[in-house]
């Protein structure tokens, strides 16, 4: 089966510009996660969707970050305006919502963002 797809793979922007990342989860996976992985650190959950509803966005900097998951499939994460400290790899992951294996998250390749 196809894995989690993300685009773009790399993005370089100036501070105060805006940027958007796209994620397509594994077909049939109801839960979608966005993580931020700063260099030298482990991934940190930004937002979790269940279908098209938000389950947890407690660590999302809502003054500049936004995310949506229209129709419960693809998702977009946006940063506006970007700051230098937003430089990181943004990982998307998905998992089944039901059943014994709903704990397992499958990760995409990530988008590496550099803010200059």
């Amino acid at each position: 089966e196809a894995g989690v797809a993300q685009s773009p793979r790399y993005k370089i922007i100036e501070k105060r510009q805006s940027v958007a990342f796209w994620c397509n989860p594994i077909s049939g996976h109801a839960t979608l996660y966005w993580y931020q992985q700063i260099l030298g650190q482990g991934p940190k959950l930004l937002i979790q969707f269940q279908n098209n509803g938000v389950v947890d966005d407690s660590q999302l900097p809502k003054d500049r970050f936004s995310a949506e998951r229209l129709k419960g499939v693809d998702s977009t994460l946006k940063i506006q305006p970007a700051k230098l400290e937003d430089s990181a790899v943004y990982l998307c992951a998905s998992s089944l919502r039901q059943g014994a294996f709903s704990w397992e998250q499958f990760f995409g390749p990530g988008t590496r963002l550099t803010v200059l």
Partner: protein
Amino acid sequence: AQTVTQSQPEMSVQEAETVTLSCTYDTSESNYYLFWYKQPPSRQMILVIRQEAYKQQNATENRFSVNFQKAAKSFSLKISDSQLGDTAMYFCAFMKHQDSNYKLTFGKGTLLTVNP
């Protein structure tokens, strides 16, 4: 809140030898999962091994095994017969099982290099 600590930022091992990566965690929960994820250079994160807290038996997956000490809140990963392809960043992660909201908390990672 849960915390995961990996005290070894970097480790190296010779091919075919055995290496152990350390992880400790802090939680007041009784029902949870622990994971080791592998993130090869410029490649996506994949699950290595999983341990359920209620199980006393240590999980094993081929050359990978864990030493789960629940009372000590310790969860180490042993890699036997190390291979060059094991070179990667390894993350220890905690998942609280609450209301089916499967949220991962990661440690900072250990960079493992397998030398020929």
